[in-house]
């Protein structure tokens, strides 16, 4: 009995892990794709079928030049060969049964012979297929493995010559485009340099500065406001608190136009300050701090007040140290909000004003100027996404508790 339930328990666990593993793979696939693509070379991105890992062609020295290496299997032996730059004419021969009348290149090729080794007989054969299409085909005479055969010419083509530099007698012919290039996994970290050079370095600094300003400002105003709402009774306080709560409901888009006009009026448009100062006053944060301060026992504070402690001192020495979790929650929320914000920077800074770009703006611009370089776009995305992800991983406890208790929107 005991044994059975244990087995059952482990089986359930296994199923749960497998299911969650698959879900996690699907959920995180875009990030995986981003990371791998951000490390790809530009020549490696437009492939079908797509592949995740970044590869680059293996090259070697041949006649004083670095040239790509291709892999061929000749007489059962794998050889790594290089292009010589020579081309050679080949005839592709088929039989009367294998010929494709309407598309000769798709005929079943039975022999592929250099032009000089095949002799035209001068004859032609007219082949008619089941659909009634018919065409003339030249007849060639070739010797394959000691046997002389008469075959039909499907098409001619010039093939590229490949040579094994270690064994120069071995030469083979193939189409370069379809030849199998030798590749190895190769991470192009230089993409990050390139993209940082495309104004993302400046944007990164700007974003960090803006985020720091907004976060510090919000925490300070929220701690003061939250304390007043939680602990200092005065006339009209609850009315103001209700107003505050109501203001949370009003979406930002209602304020967009007048805020823009206000910024223009005080000369803050296109300036980083417009991303900081209007955002350091937050009803959400104040609400969050108030809710936390309400849970701190009144007795501590009353004792301190009787001892003649000032309100400011009480706040600084009692409330702030006790409310580390709430402050941490708010810091993380504000960090993410400020770091990821887009609509307001788009309106007030705009896509054109590069020195004052934040990351989201630079990223949109990057997606326009590097429209055909997904590897660079993904690099930019990684630069914008990784810092919040790291912050989240380091502090996820506070984060998830914060959502679960207040239902805050990130």
């Amino acid at each position, binding site marked *: 009995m005991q044994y059975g339930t244990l087995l059952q328990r482990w089986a359930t666990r296994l199923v749960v892990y497998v299911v969650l593993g698959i879900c996690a793979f699907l959920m995180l696939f875009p990030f995986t794709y981003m990371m791998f693509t951000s490390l790809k070379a530009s020549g490696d991105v437009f492939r079908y079928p797509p592949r995740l890992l970044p590869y680059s062609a293996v090259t070697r020295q041949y006649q004083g030049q670095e040239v790509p290496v291709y892999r061929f299997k000749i007489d059962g032996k794998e050889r790594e060969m290089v292009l010589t730059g020579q081309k050679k004419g080949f005839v592709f021969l088929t039989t009367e049964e294998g010929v494709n009348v309407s598309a000769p290149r798709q005929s079943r090729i039975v022999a592929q012979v250099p032009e000089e080794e095949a002799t035209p007989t001068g004859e032609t054969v007219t082949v008619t297929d089941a659909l009634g299409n018919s065409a003339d085909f030249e007849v060639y005479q070739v010797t394959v493995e000691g046997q002389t055969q008469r075959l039909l010419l499907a098409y001619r083509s010039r093939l590229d010559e490949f040579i094994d530099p270690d064994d120069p007698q071995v030469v083979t012919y193939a189409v370069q485009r379809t030849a199998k290039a030798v590749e190895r996994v190769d991470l192009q970290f230089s993409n990050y340099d390139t993209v940082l050079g495309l104004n993302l370095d400046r944007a990164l600094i700007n974003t960090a500065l803006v985020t720091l300003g907004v976060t510090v400002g919000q925490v300070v105003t929220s701690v003061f406001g939250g304390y007043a709402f939680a602990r200092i009774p005065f006339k009209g*306080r609850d009315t103001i608190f209700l107003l505050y709560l109501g203001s949370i409901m009003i979406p930002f888009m209602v304020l967009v*136009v007048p805020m823009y006009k206000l910024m223009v009026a005080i000369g803050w448009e296109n300036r980083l300050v417009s991303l900081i100062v209007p955002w350091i006053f937050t009803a959400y944060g104040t609400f969050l701090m108030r809710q936390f301060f309400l849970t701190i026992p009144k007795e501590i504070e009353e004792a301190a007040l009787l001892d003649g402690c000032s309100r400011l001192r009480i706040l600084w020495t009692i409330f702030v140290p006790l409310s580390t979790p709430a402050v941490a929650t708010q810091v993380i929320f504000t960090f993410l909000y400020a770091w990821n914000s887009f609509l307001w920077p788009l309106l007030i800074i705009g896509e054109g004003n590069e020195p004052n770009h934040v990351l989201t703006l630079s990223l949109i611009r990057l997606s326009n100027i590097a429209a055909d370089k997904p590897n660079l776009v993904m690099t930019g995305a990684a630069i914008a996404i990784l810092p919040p992800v790291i912050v989240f991983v380091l502090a996820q406890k506070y984060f998830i508790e914060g959502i679960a208790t207040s239902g805050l929107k*990130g």
Partner: protein
Amino acid sequence: MSPMSNILDRPRQHLDTLKTLWRSPSFVIDANIAWNHVIVAGSVMLSLYINGMEGFYNLGDAVQRFVSLAALVPAILAVFSSILINRRRAIGRTLSLAVNYIGMVLSAVYLLHLWGVFLGIDSVARALHAHWQWLLGFAVAYALFWVAGRLREDSRPRVLLEQIALGVGMITLIALLLIMGAVQAVGDILSTYSRVQTWLVTLVIVVFGTLGYRMLLLGEYFGETPDQRTAWQGWLMLSPNAIGFMLFFAGPLLLSFYLSFTDSTGVNPPNFVGTANYRELLAIQVKVQDSPEGDPQQALDRGYLVLETFTVGSHRVVIGARDTQFWQSLRNTIVFCLMLVPLSIIPALALALVLNSKIPGMNFFRALFFLPSVAAVVGTALIWRWLYNANIGYINYAISQVVQFVNDSLGLGVKDPKYNWLTDNSTMLISIVFLAAWQIIGFNTVLFLAGLQGVPRILYEAAYVDGAGRWGQFRHVTLPMIAPTTFFVVVTTIITGLQVFNEPYALIPQRPIPLPATTSVYYLYRRGFFNFEFGYASAVAWLLFAIIFVVTLIQFRISRAGAYD
């Protein structure tokens, strides 16, 4: 007494009388009354100045008059405060404190503006960019602190390491400030004192501050009760938030409401046009044509365009609107929400049910599923743009693989659809929905988990005893118990969905975004910031807000009702 000490004594006596005078309540009151006269004069001058301004930032006469009247408020407060403190009334002192405090804060903000501190943030960013390597010093300091934190508490190496870390941080900070040109910045600030304005504002701050502080100390004299004392302390604590709230929320909100009734544009000052914007937006017309053939446009009045037609029997119903694009964008937004809700909530609930089991490692998975919610939408949308790519994207590749597998294994001839996700009118919107759902699932999962953890275990045991299976437990215990959570999740998802902007903007490459992918907020953005029709855009914003308000109200009502069950 020597003559020497006599000579020294006299100024000291004068100084002492001055000190006594300075501390005497009547002097403080008189000084405040005198200063109130200055405030009245300044306030009236400011009001006249605003009233006489040309153009007034293109905000129109009404706003100009309003602001110039608002500038008179300090004057009125100062007059009342003068009268009341003269009569030694406590309320007068409160008024005087408020006037002095707000005056000091606003002048301080203005001084910072004169110093160039606000616009100087740009230069700080530029300098940081030029010397970013120094920022690594902070990283080193942090790393040292981190290492120190691992060591035994109060051990010598730990204390030493902490001191080193602090030193590294301080040195970095000082070096960074010097390199970034802090000295020059101080010089720049000092050089603003070549203007009279700067001296004046600094002086005003000092006077506001000193008089306010002196008045503050007169609590006993005015017979201040403990309640009154608490009250101003509360207001003081609330003041940073309250002032910001007025400047950056309440003020713009009023302005937005006013603008929505005007024809304000980028060039013209607003003229009051009544409800014209709203009428234009909401104008809709339903006409019936006798036959389903012919031009449906014929049925509509001038100025109306066809929004939708459908045939009923032998008649055709034609719905027309003046602003068809607004209705189209609204419809897109609603369709978006209707698709987003099931696509983000059903997977979230399923994940939450699995994650709620008592198996180790669930917190890890919960964090993994949450990752899409913390990443910038602009970044993730660009990733998805390439995943959606018609030729090399993984989504079409996956579909091809599935199609091929089905064809091979079942011998069917299903055609590979090869969607052009982001350029085809019929798939644009659903592409945005998938992205948004992916982004929000982790968030909703966490909300559901919180709800699930509130379900008492005993209910499951009771259900088990009554013979309910897993499905029965889910159906009859879990679902009803988490109904409030589900409702909350649905409503927040809808409210988020109604405001969707970043997702379409970053995902859809065309500009402007084609109509089938235009959401309401993007429409607002286009009218407001492409065409610079500020008045019209404000009206769009308020209509959207009205919709969100109704949704919120329903939520409020229902969750209230649920609370008393």
